[in-house]
């Protein structure tokens, strides 16, 4: 009996140790607002903090509590915070930091192979993920690595794709029940994209969904000839998860080559689409394509925002997104049905959306040999950096890039693992472009307020229960706006361009705000 008790006790202890951050903690993130357990804090993609210590009234007293210097420029990390430890990542490295002081507790890195090449993007990592007793990091050379949360020692690593073919990972992984979901970059290298899930304990692949259907699969007919083989469809921005519907929502990027669609006639599914995938099997439940046969590089590279609201008197489970193509969409997240949509930024490529949400494409809106002036530019009216949804205000906050571009079409030849663009663009002059933080009615896309920025931004948005919205500018301003009016209430010059997503957490019960600015992570508090 004593032996049995001992075995049982040891089983309980090891299970407790293994279950430091069980999935239930992540699924119930609102119960512990002092932590930031997944990319968007919650699985629904809200990037909203229920913390409300910092308000418009007291924010003037906000100070830098500590800073941490990264080894690389232009950090795009969105940290994870678990029980007084912050986890950050960069290109092929991760670190654990003490939240009281910013002092490093452990550091892990994996050598970037000498023959690795980033094709069409910067060498960054947008953040790690946590589940149970492990930290998960996606690497540039396309490995998913599981680290021991306590020590940073490697538990396992699994090859996700082949960097020699242009696959790479900058994405923050998404932890769901027992699985880690990742996507790949490579839309400028003519890869065939996919979304993958791996067993969180072993690293064994659980499922793969190819974003470009193969022969015999529905949607294959939307690609002319063999163009599907090099059609792109990368999946480089973290998705969202509905634990009740058990559906993974993930955005798919541009078709390849980006600016020359001549050889890939058809709608090019599932490029520029949102996918709803069964979390257990990876089977496609529904898809919605925002930009059929795109020739502007307008990836659906966005974290989907899942929320519930009444539509025509009926409670609906919804998904909202401000797409790179300058339209805001509301879909039913159970079926993919289009519910509402309208443009939220200047665009000249479509006359509007039809009743199914399909764009009514305007003439002269594609790249040409001599150049065609089109809004928005190739980076889109917004791009990978996160929007925020506040359940308090019902508003969808998005960092908007108001910039047009002259798009050119050029010939392009596919060679595996090399740049495969088919053209390019000339951006408008800096003083002809600007940025905005825009608050949209989440159910309609109607603009409620604007806050103008000096230039098109690269930073995401955090909203808080303190009725504040935080974001950053390319000129280094980190700032807060009143969540209901957009009025600026605080700003701080960080000294470096901000191209990351803010988060909020607590240290000894006191609210903190964190943001990366170039190669420095700042943590603010009272």
């Amino acid at each position, binding site marked *: 009996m004593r032996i049995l008790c001992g075995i049982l006790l040891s089983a309980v202890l090891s299970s407790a140790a293994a279950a430091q951050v069980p999935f239930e903690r992540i699924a119930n993130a609102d119960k512990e607002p002092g932590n930031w357990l997944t990319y968007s804090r919650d699985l629904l993609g809200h990037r909203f903090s229920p913390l409300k210590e910092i308000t418009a009234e007291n924010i003037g007293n906000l100070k830098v509590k500590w800073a941490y210097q990264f080894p*690389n420029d232009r950090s795009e990390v969105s940290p994870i915070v678990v029980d007084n430890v912050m986890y950050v990542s960069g290109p092929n490295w991760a670190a654990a930091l003490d939240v009281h002081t910013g002092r490093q507790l452990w550091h892990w890195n994996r050598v970037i192979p000498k023959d690795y090449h*980033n094709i069409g993007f910067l*060498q960054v990592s947008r953040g790690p993920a946590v589940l149970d007793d492990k930290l998960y990091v996606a690497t540039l050379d396309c490995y998913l690595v599981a680290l021991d949360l306590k020590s940073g020692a490697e538990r396992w690593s699994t090859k996700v794709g082949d960097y020699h073919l242009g696959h790479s990972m900058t994405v923050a992984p998404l932890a769901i029940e027992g699985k880690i979901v990742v996507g790949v970059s490579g839309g400028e290298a003519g890869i065939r994209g996919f979304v993958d899930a791996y067993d969180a304990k072993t690293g064994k692949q659980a499922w793969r969904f190819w974003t470009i259907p193969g022969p015999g699969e529905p949607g294959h007919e939307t690609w002319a000839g063999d163009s599907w083989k090099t059609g792109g469809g990368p999946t480089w921005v973290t998705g969202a998860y509905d634990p009740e519907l058990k559906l993974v929502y993930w955005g798919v990027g541009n078709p390849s080559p980006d600016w020359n669609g001549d050889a890939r006639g058809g709608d090019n599914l599932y490029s520029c689409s949102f996918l709803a995938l069964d979390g257990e099997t990876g089977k496609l439940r529904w898809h919605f394509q925002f930009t059929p046969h795109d020739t502007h590089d307008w990836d659906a590279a966005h974290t989907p925002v899942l929320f519930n609201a009444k539509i025509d008197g009926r409670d609906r489970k919804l998904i909202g997104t401000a797409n790179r193509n300058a339209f805001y969409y509301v879909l039913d997240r159970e079926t993919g049905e289009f519910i509402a949509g309208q443009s939220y930024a200047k665009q000249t490529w479509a006359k509007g959306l039809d009743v199914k949400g399909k764009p009514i494409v305007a003439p002269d809106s594609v790249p040409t040999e001599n150049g065609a002036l089109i809004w928005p530019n190739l980076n889109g009216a917004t791009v990978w950096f996160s929007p925020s949804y506040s359940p308090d205000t019902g508003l969808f906050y998005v960092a908007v890039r108001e910039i047009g571009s002259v798009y050119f079409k050029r010939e392009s030849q596919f060679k595996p693992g090399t740049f495969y*663009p088919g*053209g390019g663009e000339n951006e408008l002059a800096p*003083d002809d472009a600007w940025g905005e933080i825009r608050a949209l009615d989440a159910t309609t896309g109607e603009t409620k307020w604007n806050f103008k920025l000096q230039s098109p931004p690269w930073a995401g948005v955090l909203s808080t229960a303190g009725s504040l919205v935080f974001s950053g500018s390319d000129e280094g*301003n980190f700032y807060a706006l009143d969540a209901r009016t957009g009025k600026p209430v605080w*700003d701080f*010059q960080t000294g470096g361009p901000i191209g990351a997503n803010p988060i909020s957490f607590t240290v000894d019960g006191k609210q903190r705000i964190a943001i990366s600015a170039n190669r420095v992570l700042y943590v603010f508090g009272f």
Partner: protein
Amino acid sequence: MGSAMPVAARPGRAPSGKKAAHADVAAGKKLFERHCVLCHGIDGKGGRGPSLNRARLAHAPDDAALKALIADGIPPVMPEGWLFDDNDLANLAAYVRSLGKIPPDPVPGNPGRGADVYAKSGCSGCHILDGAGAGYGPELTGIGERRNTAFLLKAIMKPSATLAEDFMFVKATTASGEAIEGIRANEDTFTIQIKDSGGEYHSLRKDELKDLHKLRGETPMPSFEGILSASDMQDLVAYLASQRGKP
């Protein structure tokens, strides 16, 4: 990724086996349009990356440095050009250089007399040339390398037609009513830094200003059209065109 590694020895690069004696600008243009335009723009005017249509490139003082830079990249912001062989690098470098090259054009004036015109017209009241003068307007040391004579003539006759893309003349009025006029040195969402004609910098919070006017297309530089004679104008242009910088 050490930049000291010889170009031909870099992993993945196939040596061409022949000396790139005559770089092919047209071939370089094709490579540029395939590999470089995402960041540098279709004709090198810049975008996410810097503009390349200038005589002096910050990271590449000479052709060897430019080829090495294209080969090695600038981690992490610019990828290395590992797939280019030596001919490709020479062609690309030649094309990039052609974007900023000032074609030689005839300079009919007399540079020596132009120096006198420069002095008597008060140019040094706003410009620094070879270390002398005031630093309100753009430095003119080496201007002959960056601008051709047609541009120089236009800049003197119609200065507002030759403003740099990021140039902005601004007028701000503070809460106390003080008017500040000058060239924008820097600007972000919340603040602006202005250099006035005396060279003083004013750092202002935008939300504390009564008003802020951006005078697009305007410049404090006066037009000398009708003020200088045609021969003085030619001499002044010749003088400026002769400014090739220090070796």
